[in-house]
């Protein structure tokens, strides 16, 4: 294997990691609060707001139902507004983030739903405010489920980032398509797939480890 190829694979790996890291981080920062809102505004919940809940639900579902490759090109004007360009790795990170936010939100909502209502009731009986219930009961108790959801998101983003080549974002998926498929180089194709598999394995193991460490259930 030539050193040029090794460089190319290394470069693409960094691009993939960069896109996944940026989009996961921002999606977590925005998706977790959205997931909390989706949960606490449900009917009979601590901040029940059926109208807001319904609205958020629709928005989240719309976000989740648009195929990623369409989202990628559909929001190009928005991407240009945010990062100043519609091509490149940064430009690919924007649609990745947008796609991941509702994904994270639904997974967080699901994790919160696993928290026993009895715990919320107990906190209420102690005179906890809704904010205290969120910060001291719901989020800590759902910690394992939330980390699990974020792991799933990161893995999904690794896979989505393969489409980033469509906007010149680079990354391993792009490398595999351009060199492996378009130039009929099965070695490159194989290498990119192996690197992606190893990457996903590592993320999953790290996620599982963090879940085990943080959860005392």
């Amino acid at each position, binding site marked *: 294997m030539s050193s040029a190829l090794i460089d190319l694979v290394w470069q693409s790996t960094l691009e993939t990691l960069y896109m996944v890291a940026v989009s996961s981080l921002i999606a977590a920062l925005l998706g977790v609060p959205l997931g909390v809102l989706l949960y606490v505004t449900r009917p009979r919940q601590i901040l029940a707001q059926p109208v807001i809940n319904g609205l958020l639900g629709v928005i989240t579902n719309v976000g989740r139902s648009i195929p990623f490759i369409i989202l990628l090109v559909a929001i190009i004007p928005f991407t240009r507004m945010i990062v100043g360009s519609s091509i490149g790795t940064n430009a690919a990170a924007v649609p990745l983030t947008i796609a991941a936010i509702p994904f994270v939100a639904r997974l967080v909502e699901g994790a919160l739903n696993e928290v*026993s209502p*009895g*715990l919320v*009731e*107990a*906190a*209420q*009986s*102690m*005179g*906890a*405010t809704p904010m*205290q219930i969120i910060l*001291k*009961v719901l989020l*800590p*108790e759902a*910690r394992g489920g939330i980390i699990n959801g974020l792991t799933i998101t990161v893995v999904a983003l690794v896979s989505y980032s393969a489409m980033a080549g469509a906007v010149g974002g680079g990354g391993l998926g792009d490398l595999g398509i351009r060199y492996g498929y378009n130039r009929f180089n099965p070695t490159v194709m194989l290498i990119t797939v192996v690197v992606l598999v190893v990457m996903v394995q590592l993320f999953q193991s790290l996620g599982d480890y963090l879940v085990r460490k*943080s*959860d*005392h*259930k």
Partner: protein
Amino acid sequence: MITLERVSKTYGSGGRAVQALEDIDLTVPKGTIHGVIGLSGAGKSTLIRCVNLLERPSAGRVFVDGQELTALNPAQLRQARHQCGMIFQHFNLLTNRSVYDNVALPLELMRESRGAIRERVMPLLELTGLADKARQYPAELSGGQKQRVAIARALASRPKVLLCDEATSALDPQTTTSILSLLQEINQQLGLTILLITHEMEVVKSICHRVGLISDGRLVEEADVGDFFTAPATRLGREFLNDFLELEPPQALVERLEAEAGAHTHPVVRLTFSGDSVSTPLISRLAREHGIDVSILQAKVESIQGRTLGLMIAELMGSAEQTRQALATLESFDLHVEVLGHVQRTD
């Protein structure tokens, strides 16, 4: 200390409305342990949740320590809830917090300093016998230990009232006993007023001073525990008592019982005696004065809060006239006579 005034709770509305509580009046004086017993679905859980307004009554007023909770705004209500500790059937401990941090939670919510929290939590762990478990997590504890943590947590905010929602129902009999004696200790040492709901007569018998019986959302009977166990006023109360004492006639006898007296039958009676009548030599008197034989099929003596309760199922063997007179004599004493049926003579 706790007063419920004509409290009602209805779920839903219109044709599908369900009345969970109806016109409940309840007063629990300071320092007493008050039990509310009832079958599942009778409204017990709703009742206790109406005291700290986890459920808001549809009508009526709730007072705790002279303060009308039903008149407070949400912020005032949260403040008032520090006066009411609560423990639950399934403990409701936070799984990702250590024992220490679980007990500290109510104090954190009240924004106490770390130092103040430490000074409060450690003695509570001592009181509940958990000092060596402070760093452990709930998953590592037994059910009884979990409920002790919950009790320590409920006491952290120095409440005046402790609400117990089926606190021992998920525990085995031995653990139940130890949790009940802890509750009794807390009641006596800290002067805490306790309202508990349960479906177990054992709980009422061991620690309650007064008891209310709830059925279909209504308090149908209320009495001192000694009176309730010796002479329940309602049919449901009697059923609870008989179940508790396991004083049901044996199956073989039930199969022979006939509803109506015949020419050749003897009555089978269930006698419940309390107070003075326990020490009266009733059986020999019946034999001597009415010339009948008494065959005792089942008997039991219980001691409840210093009062003695005797129970007996017996067949009265004599002629129709003799047994009629014997029954009249029995009823003239301070005891409850219930004719269960009649059996054919075998002699």
